[in-house]
């Protein structure tokens, strides 16, 4: 095999690893343990084992630790959360490498329940440490993995809406996707809801607890699925390892649609996407609107060859973390730059004007403005406008405007 395409589902409670085109997958608790008298590290169940016999010190909730810049002291040494994550990822990525006798990682797609810039930066930093080039590392939300997983199945699975209930130890989430078939392009809109009705999975150990859990799931399903046409419902997460506690809910879920239990759903979806990154032409020719993707197209009105046209700086469906663009424009009787934000509903489009305050006064058409656009999250665009002057005729100054735009 000439390199692995890995889908990695990283949560505080568990980590699941899948490889594209391989059936075998791994699931273990997201914990790391350091041996007391030695600089040796263990992960997953092994970490628990060493801790239980008193030979190691364990750290759990690694994602949370990284997110809040936390530290953990193990055997008198203070470790940053990110350092522990680095070691953890190194250890767990060894597993598929050893299993498939392959050292190279062709693509690593990490899927997280919640995607934020902090985790993205942290994971990229870890990738540097692991020697995996950044262009081979991608990060996506569970919702997006769900989209790629579903769209990789037969069409009848996603003819109508598709939902997934994700019941894990630390949360109860619901994702839903709808395929909108347009004249030119297909759009997939996927959303996520964190259910307040989340419960501790320990209650499933008693008959009364099972009954309560069934009631909760049933009421959630009634509320979320009503008046909508679903082709398929997926169930995932530790809570659905067995389903005999959810007799009533199953009746509701299974009526007029197919229901599948798949514990690898998010990791598989990530691996599918990883494979797609290697293709010259995508196997998923649709715009994906979900968490981690831009919901609006951002453009600027520019003059090109004496004609006004819209220059697209970011498109709806682009991965916001990877979406960056830079353009140089010359001001022609204008002292501001303006962006047109067009959401999926074009009626809601709006103009965002950024005045170029503090820019030097010059003759017309002699100020070149360098505009860089990036995103802090899917709803926040960061714009930087720099005075680039006009060669030696009007040298650049350090005038610069940085503005965040809520999309």
């Amino acid at each position: 095999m000439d390199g692995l395409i890995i889908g990695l589902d990283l949560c505080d409670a568990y980590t699941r690893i899948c490889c594209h085109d391989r059936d075998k997958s791994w699931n273990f608790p997201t914990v790391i343990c350091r041996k007391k008298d030695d600089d040796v590290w263990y992960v997953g169940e092994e970490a628990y084992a060493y801790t239980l016999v008193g030979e190691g010190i364990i750290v759990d909730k690694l994602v949370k630790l990284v997110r809040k810049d936390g530290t953990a002291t193990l055997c008198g040494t203070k470790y940053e959360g990110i350092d522990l994550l680095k070691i953890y990822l190194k250890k767990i990525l060894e597993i598929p490498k050893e299993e498939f006798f392959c050292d190279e990682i062709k693509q690593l797609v990490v899927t997280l329940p919640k995607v934020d810039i902090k985790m993205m930066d942290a994971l990229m930093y870890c990738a540097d440490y692991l020697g995996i080039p950044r262009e081979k590392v991608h990060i996506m939300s569970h919702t997006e993995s769900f989209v790629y997983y579903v769209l990789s199945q037969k069409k009848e699975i996603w003819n109508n809406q598709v939902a997934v209930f994700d019941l894990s130890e630390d949360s109860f989430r619901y994702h839903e996707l709808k395929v909108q078939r347009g004249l030119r392009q297909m759009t997939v809109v996927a959303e996520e809801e964190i259910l307040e009705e989340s419960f501790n999975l320990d209650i499933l150990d008693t008959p009364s607890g099972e009954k309560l859990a069934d009631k909760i799931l049933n009421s959630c399903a009634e509320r979320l699925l009503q008046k909508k046409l679903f082709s398929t419902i997926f169930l995932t997460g530790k809570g659905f390892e067995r389903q005999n506690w959810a007799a009533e809910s199953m009746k509701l879920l299974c009526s007029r649609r197919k229901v599948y239990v798949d514990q690898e759903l998010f990791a598989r979806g990530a691996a599918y996407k990883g494979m797609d990154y290697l293709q010259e032409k995508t196997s998923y020719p649709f715009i994906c609107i979900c968490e981690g993707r831009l919901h609006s197209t951002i453009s600027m009105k520019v003059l090109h060859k004496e004609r006004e046209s819209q220059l697209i700086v970011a498109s709806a469906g682009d991965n916001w973390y990877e979406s960056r663009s830079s353009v140089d424009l010359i001001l022609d009787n204008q002292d501001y730059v303006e962006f047109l934000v067009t959401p999926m509903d074009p009626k809601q489009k709006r103009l965002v004007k950024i005045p170029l305050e503090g820019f030097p006064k010059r003759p017309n058409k002699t100020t070149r403005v360098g505009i860089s656009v990036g995103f802090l999250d899917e709803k926040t665009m960061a714009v930087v406008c720099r005075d680039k002057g006009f060669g030696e005729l009007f040298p650049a100054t350090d005038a610069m405007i940085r503005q965040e735009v809520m999309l």
Partner: protein
Amino acid sequence: MSLILCRQEPVKHPFYFEGLGIHLYSSQELCYVIFNNPLLVMEEFVDLHLIEFIRNELNMTFLALKLEKWQQSGEDPDELLCLILSECDYYNASEVNRFRQEVAAYRKMSQPEFGKARADYLFMKKQYGKAVADYERILEYMKSSKGHEEFLAKVYNNLGSSYARLFLTDKAYHAYVKSFELVSNKDVLSRIYYLSKWNPALEVKERFQTLLTEELKAEADLRMDNADEAAENAESLQVLEELFSKDPIKRLAGAGEIIQRWKMEYRNMV
């Protein structure tokens, strides 16, 4: 009101525009220089060097090829300039037409008039050394022609002013004297007086000493005082004062930039 999209032009070797003593790094700058300085680009501006710059640095192969073909076929050189303006998407069609008309108006001038207009423009752009060369060329050209005293007096006067800006007071004085000899002008007399004030070692002919009446001197002194006062309140001086009120690191960096700019300006002057 609009924003013009800039072409990606990774210029590694800028084009040196001798007329203004600057380097050009983009097609927009090239167009701006042509459009705003027609007098400086009307004579042999489009040459092999420029065409190479357009081809290799601006990556506008088609335009370069067109310029070459037009040049070989003996096309009007002004049209080559208009072609550059049209192809770079910086000026619109009506602006290019305006440029064409402006150039046509200059072409209607006689050679000495055109030369003077060009030299005056260089003077205005503080390119005093180049202005001097142009004024000298006009005088050489008109050496044998008679009956153009007024025109020649103006040329000598402007030549004197160019020399004065280069701090060559002796040469400036001689040019002013020539101008005054052709047409007696009170303003030229005042300028001779200013020169004598700036350079007390200057030997002013006795004839001018007598022509410089007390009244004229008082008037000139008043104007010099006003100029001094204006200089004291000049914006550039305020910038300097601001700079010197900053912390030593910023002051040093700012001073370095200013000196570099002055050096460049002075080099262009001469």
